[in-house]
């Protein structure tokens, strides 16, 4: 673990220093904003997007602010995250922390944040993190309650499907999403015709696909991480499942779609906060071009979410929030127009109250926004 952390931190220092240099030259306000995200481990793909979004927002900070930031890899364990947070708190006086999107890590970091009265901004979708009455947590990604409502509404209202087969991950992300989907379906008087949980290490999906087929559904809802989503869709296409699939945010990542042939994406939709590849505004197109140039990869909704979160923190600092408590108040009470949406906290710290459904056709891996739910 030590090797992970040191490696990530060292190259992150160099990267942050290079990115922040232009802003530092004109500094008047100075803030410390550590980025504690999983750059290694099973969520490294999503964590890297989160890191990139934060770094790009720091690079794009307006003149008049100096941002001291370093990236620390939290790995995939709760201890990795708490150690990183305690170290960040002991090294300076952060005004806020860009915190891991891994739900179990957030749950471990939250008591420390509460004790030290330090705001955490995150793009974790895990429902529980905003259910703990912790006033220092701010989620810039649609929580399960918002995202799954959109997920279920799209299935029932747009696709007009009723016989749902539900496949989800055994992680906190998967189980939290599953609970919300079941609750939303229940409100409509529906129960899944089939349910199955998958560990992230499951490679062969033929058993679960066979069960889906045997239950005779008219739609499949999957709530899996990126890699398993691609595995499911690839093997479902091979098994000629021929059913519409509405997936969780894992499927909205460009790297997930890149694993599949366009034909395997036919009839596949996914919920997310934003679809940067689909553009939609000049600001989003600029973000897309800059992200590609900076990181040589495609951005996803997590990158956009953390970009917006970090931009809002920087904006609040420029407007006078120089202490963690000022920052908490600013995040809790003001609204901010970001790339993906306008963010405004509810009583629990949910900043993102919109979700979009993106859909793929069988001709390309670039999705189109099919429906927006505010």
């Amino acid at each position, binding site marked *: 673990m030590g*090797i*992970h952390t040191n*490696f990530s931190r060292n*190259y992150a220092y160099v990267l942050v220093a290079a990115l922040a240099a232009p802003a530092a030259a004109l500094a008047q306000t100075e803030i410390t904003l550590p980025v504690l995200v999983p*750059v*290694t*481990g*099973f969520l*490294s*793909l999503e*964590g*890297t997007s989160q890191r990139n979004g934060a770094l790009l927002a720091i690079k794009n900070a307006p003149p008049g602010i100096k941002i001291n930031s370093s990236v620390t890899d939290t790995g995939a364990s709760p201890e990795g995250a708490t150690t990183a947070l305690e170290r960040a708190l002991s090294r300076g006086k952060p005004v806020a922390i860009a915190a891991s999107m891994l739900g179990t890590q957030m749950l471990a970091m939250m008591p420390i944040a509460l004790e030290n009265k330090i705001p955490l901004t995150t793009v974790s979708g895990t429902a529980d993190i905003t259910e703990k009455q912790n006033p220092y947590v701010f989620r810039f990604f649609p929580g399960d309650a918002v995202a799954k409502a959109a997920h279920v509404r799209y299935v029932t209202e747009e696709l007009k499907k009723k016989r749902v087969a539900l496949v989800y991950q*055994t992680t906190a992300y998967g189980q939290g999403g599953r609970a919300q989907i079941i609750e939303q379906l229940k409100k409509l008087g529906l129960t899944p015709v089939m349910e*199955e*949980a*998958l*560990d992230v*290490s*499951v*490679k*062969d999906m*033929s*058993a*679960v696909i*066979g*069960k889906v*087929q*045997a239950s005779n559904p008219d739609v499949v809802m999957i709530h899996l991480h*990126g*890699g398993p989503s*691609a*595995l499911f869709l690839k093997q479902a296409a*091979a*098994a*000629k499942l021929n059913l519409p699939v509405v997936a969780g945010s894992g499927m909205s990542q460009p*790297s*997930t779609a*890149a*694993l599949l042939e366009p034909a395997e994406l036919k009839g596949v939709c996914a919920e997310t906060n934003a679809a940067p590849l689909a553009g939609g505004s000049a600001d989003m197109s600029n973000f897309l071009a800059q992200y590609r140039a900076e990181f040589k*990869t495609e951005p996803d909704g997590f990158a956009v979410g953390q970009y917006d979160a970090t931009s809002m923190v920087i904006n609040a600092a420029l407007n006078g929030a120089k202490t963690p408590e000022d920052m908490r108040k600013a995040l809790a009470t003001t609204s901010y127009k970001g790339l993906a949406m306008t963010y405004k906290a509810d009583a629990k710290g949910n900043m993102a109250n919109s979700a979009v459904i993106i859909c793929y056709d069988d001709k390309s891996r670039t999705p189109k926004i099919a429906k927006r739910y505010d």
Partner: protein
Amino acid sequence: MLLQISLNALALGAAYGLLALGFVMILNATSAVNFAHGDMVMVGAYLAIALHGVFNIPGALLLPLVMALMALLGFVFSWFAYFPLKDRPPVSVFISTIAIGIVFQNSINAVQGAEPRKGPALLGEGQLALGSLTISEQSLSIIGVALLLIVAQYYLLNRTGIGRKLRATAQDRPMAEALGIRVNRMIALTFAIGSALAGAAGLMLSNTFFTSPTDGSNYILKAYIAVTIGGWGSLPGALCGALIIALFEVVYPSLPVLIPALKEIAPLLFTQTTSTIVLYIGLLCIMFFRPQGLFGEKVQKRV
């Protein structure tokens, strides 16, 4: 349906088998667990992806090159992870292999990124239609190539002079040394062969199941369990253990589809999650009641 599921299980088991064979060969030769073996599978997968980007030829043609380069890596690995520590307590070798595995993971992460990647197919990715049955070309290719490699390994170990020296080194190192066998050379060769097999498994698995820098820890667990089930040190046992794991991953959770009555009797007993629980309970039973594994020797320590 049964044939299709069995074929998937066999393809997965065959790839796991190569992984487990390499693992147990190194275990026998060094009496140490190579915890980086799973990461070798991942490195083999990335090597195949990189070579495919350069040559753009099917995986079957890349396989010899991947295996040769992985053998070289295994040879170098032995000089860093094993030989400097071979006279220290076994835990030193465990730790050194874990450390090098983490170096592999992070190096690939830094160079290639964290995104899952898809490797080249051995021959093709299409589906062969046989009546109502559709069979994946890749699954058939994996079974064929893995079988070929297993037979080749059997021939090498049992029908050649070098194989006899390898086995002698694995069975009784001091005696082999007394007979003039250069045991260090044999151990390095074992690392090379084991790593080549891991690389072959990586190439095969990366097309159907993709690969990412963190895959190694999952694969080492499979190898470890396969060897524990089959018998610590037994090559046929490792193969059998790998097949059992694949059966639990693919066939066991499919039973309600194959036998619909099971769905009514015990719907929760045949999920993907319970299949893992049952597999590990089975593993515990083997450890309690047959600690030498299904194919292991009854004598635990040689005099």
